[in-house]
């Protein structure tokens, strides 16, 4: 890298330009990320609603994590504790369901599209179409599927099924806990499988084709080539995809929050992010919201550290390949 440059790079006189060039980034990052982060930490130790300036210590955290032991079933602490853990559970369920569909599809397609023996016609077209959902705005996607899976008999699916005599009464997609969750999983997978497929595909194309030739000459079958060659080499990219998707999934907000008509979000789709959003945006409960944010942040950092570890593993063979 730059370290291999000539000595004149190290002349002190140029260092100030380095600081000058990176200064805007760090000023803006400090103003819009670091200070808001510190502010969030401060808010998490303060009260809620009108008591936003009162210092409450770890109360928000202890209520979120352990509930309010003194107050019985309807105590504020208990309500928030339940909502928070419920949100966490829902987030993980929604993420896992979507990810299973997504990863199976995108792995399969990536392997197919990179297969040199069995060519598929129109690969370029398929890639373009499969990535298409990813560029549509979440608000429109949610609105689209709300119209398609509407509870009323005028929704696209219900009207199709009723007109063909498959069912008599409209299916209440949106008010059934599991149906609405499965729909959200489907939407998330629909949005992201093209993107994941292209990421995996670029990983597969990075594999030296001569390895495959050698395997074919040695009589390796399609499945053993996949499990013994493609997967081990793809492992770093694969893990990267899993963990970045999980981190992204933990912040899942748009689709679960927007999947509703009327003014109130669907209760079966409360995620951690919608909990945070609702409490600082609608109910003015900055304390709970901030404490939940910090807890989410801690989980994200732990996962991020795993990514960093795999990331350094992943770059080592990559650099060799370039030479």
């Amino acid at each position: 890298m730059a370290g291999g440059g000539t000595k004149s790079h190290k002349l002190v006189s140029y260092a100030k330009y380095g600081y000058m060039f990176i200064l805007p980034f760090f000023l803006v990052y400090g103003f819009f990320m670091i200070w808001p982060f510190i502010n969030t930490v401060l808010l998490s130790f303060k009260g809620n609603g009108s008591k936003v300036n009162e210092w409450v210590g770890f109360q928000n955290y202890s209520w979120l994590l352990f509930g309010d032991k003194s107050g019985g079933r309807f105590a504020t602490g208990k309500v928030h504790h339940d909502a928070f853990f419920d949100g966490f559970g829902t987030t993980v369920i929604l993420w896992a369901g979507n990810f299973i569909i997504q990863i199976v599809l995108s792995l399969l397609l990536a392997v197919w599209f990179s297969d040199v023996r069995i060519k598929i016609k129109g690969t370029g077209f398929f890639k373009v179409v499969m990535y298409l959902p990813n560029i549509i705005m979440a608000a429109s996607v949610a609105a689209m599927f709300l119209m398609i899976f509407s509870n009323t008999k005028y929704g696209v699916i219900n009207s199709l099924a009723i007109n063909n005599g498959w069912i008599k009464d409209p299916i209440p997609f949106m008010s059934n806990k599991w149906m609405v969750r499965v729909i959200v999983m489907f939407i998330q997978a629909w949005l992201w499988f093209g993107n994941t497929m292209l990421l995996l595909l670029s990983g597969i194309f990075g594999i030296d084709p001569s390895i495959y030739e050698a395997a074919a000459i040695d009589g390796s079958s399609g499945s053993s080539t996949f499990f013994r060659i493609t997967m081990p080499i793809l492992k770093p990219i694969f893990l990267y995809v899993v963990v970045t998707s999980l981190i992204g999934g933990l912040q899942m907000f748009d689709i679960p929050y927007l999947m509703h008509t009327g003014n109130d979000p669907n209760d079966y789709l409360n995620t951690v992010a919608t909990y945070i959003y609702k409490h600082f945006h609608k109910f003015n409960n900055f304390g709970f919201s901030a404490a939940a944010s910090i807890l989410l942040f801690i989980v994200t950092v732990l996962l991020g550290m795993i990514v960093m570890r795999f990331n350094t593993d992943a770059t080592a063979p990559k650099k060799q390949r370039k030479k």
Partner: protein
Amino acid sequence: MADSYNQSSSAYKRMIMTHSIIRFIVCVLLSVICLLPIIIILMNGTRSSASIIANGFSIVPGNALSDNWAKLTDPDKGPFSAVYNVWLGYRNSLFISLAATGVAVLFSGLTAYGLTVYHFKLRNFATTFILAVLMIPTQVVSAGFLDFMIKIGWVDNYLPLILPAIASPSTVFFMLQYMRSSFPLDIVEAARIDGSGEVRTFVQIALPILKPAFAVQAIFMFVGNWNNYYTPSIILLSNKLEQRTMSMMIQSVVANDKNIDYGVQYLAIGMSVLPVIIIYLILSKFIVKGIALGAVKG
């Protein structure tokens, strides 16, 4: 011998053919699943509410487009123009997205250039810092962010939607990787010998070389900002129509369950996806390649 060879070879060919056809069919099915919801939305936007109530599923256009359009845009004919204005939506979303994309690629290029070309004490620390914060999502700071913006009076203002883009760690990371693989440092040296100042070298020599990386990142930044619902809905607290982004308008059209007019609602949603789809199809080859590029480098 030759016979059996021919036989096995034709069996092999047949196997290849069958597999290829099966895979083709699966791909066609998946493409249909990707396209169908969008097609239904666009088609239903051209149909009258009455015909949608009779049959919600259609993949051919109807004849009520101009009618729906009038109801969507004319305050005398429908309630929708109070919450949804397609031109204002485009204008606001376009303005925010273009401005954010512009500052993001420019300043990310500047930052990556500074970290690659110059040697200074904090260089490694700065690089590590940017890599470390790559994964931190804006959601976890948003409570503190909104509180801060309220205190300095920046709510209902586009500045907090545009300025944070100056510090986009993922764009910087991408630029860093790109510069390391395809930016010759000697060229900076040569420019210095020729008497070019540092800023001029960046503008006239580095920027043209970095153009491909800029283009890829610009597209993703633009799409990300255009589609963003979260930040605008936090910052634009008063939810004034003339300030709303397209995402926020769509949300209000759907949230409105008192004045239901299916055709008009479908048209409103369709108008929000159509321009992006058209631009995507024009640039698709480039975008699909860009994702792969980003992945290999990052």
